[in-house]
């Protein structure tokens, strides 16, 4: 009797774990997705895209809390509008892309926050520094596809981006807004 109960319990636990894990990975449509960072230089807002990134989202509309997100950005692909400038930004003072080629975001919790809205918490790692971040994310379902959009304000100096004289935030502001949209299908 005891054994049967244990087995049943085990089956129940395994079963629910299986359903939780079934927040199936979506296939990201890179062409319709984008990640950018908007920085302010002498009060001029400049939105510059990261040309190379990978986003993996596990999402099930029926079980949003079981969602997971994982984004990996190639820092050297940051395009601020000119090849010469892009090379500068990959250097040690800024992204140090040689030593830290990727910036990553890994979610730790995703909580539903009303219709089409999720609150995402997770770890953002850039230039060897990791910070806990949380930000709102919107989800739109259209034609078998999901469109996830959100933005996350960060402080660049917390990640040591902009060393030496560039720590002076009167030239390039400390606050940078990371914007992303991920289009993904089942």
């Amino acid at each position, binding site marked *: 009797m005891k054994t049967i109960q244990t087995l049943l319990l085990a089956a129940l636990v395994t079963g629910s774990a299986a359903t939780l894990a079934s927040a199936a990975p979506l296939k990201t449509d890179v062409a319709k997705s984008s990640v950018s960072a908007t920085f302010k*230089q*002498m*009060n*001029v*807002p*400049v*939105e*510059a895209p990261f040309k190379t990134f990978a986003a993996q989202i596990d999402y099930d509309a029926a079980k949003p809390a079981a969602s997971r997100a994982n984004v990996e950005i190639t820092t050297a692909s940051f395009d*601020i*509008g*000119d090849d*010469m*400038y892009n090379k*500068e*930004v990959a250097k040690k003072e800024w992204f140090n892309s040689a030593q830290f080629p990727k910036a990553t975001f890994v979610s730790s919790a995703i909580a539903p926050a009303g219709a089409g809205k999720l609150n995402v918490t997770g770890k953002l790692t850039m230039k060897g520094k990791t910070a806990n971040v949380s930000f709102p994310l919107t989800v739109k379902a259209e034609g078998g596809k999901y469109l996830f959009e959100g933005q996350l304000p960060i402080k660049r100096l917390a990640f040591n981006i902009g060393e030496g*004289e560039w720590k*002076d935030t009167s*030239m*390039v502001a400390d606050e940078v807004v990371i914007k992303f949209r991920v289009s993904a299908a089942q």
Partner: protein
Amino acid sequence: MRRYTIPAIVLHWLIAIGIIGTFTLGLVMTDIQGISMAKIRYTNWHKWAGVTVLALAALRLLWRLFNHPPEYADDMPAWQRGAAHGLHIALYLLMFAVPLSGYFFSLAAGYPVVWFGEVPLPVLIDRDPALRDLLRETHYWLNMLLAALVSLHVLAAFKHLIIDRDGVMQRMLPSFARK
């Protein structure tokens, strides 16, 4: 000889200073390799100055449309009048074309212009790398043309002052400088 009206004279010299200053700043800033504080600062100053010249040029064109310029010297040959007129039209066109090409170059590169760091100016086009490259070349060559035509304009003015001594240049000088 009649001279230009005070607003016309003031606008002419403000724009002259603006063009020479902005042009020089453009040469200095593009000479700096990589990214530096100075480069960012000069580039923004250059944009502020360029937009200022554009605004002054608009005022000047309006003034010119409603005010006839003073006559040339009576003995000035017809071909010189024609050449002067053509050169002035070209300079007017470039007073608009040069700052506008720079403005759109900046927009195409993804950089809006915030006048004096305070006034965000309209973002009329999206970031566009192909257009950016085209506008960079356009802005450069329009500036070279402007430099050539301004030089010609200055040489002609001094020819009137020193060789012809016909009072044509004095029309554009403040009254205390005329004799």
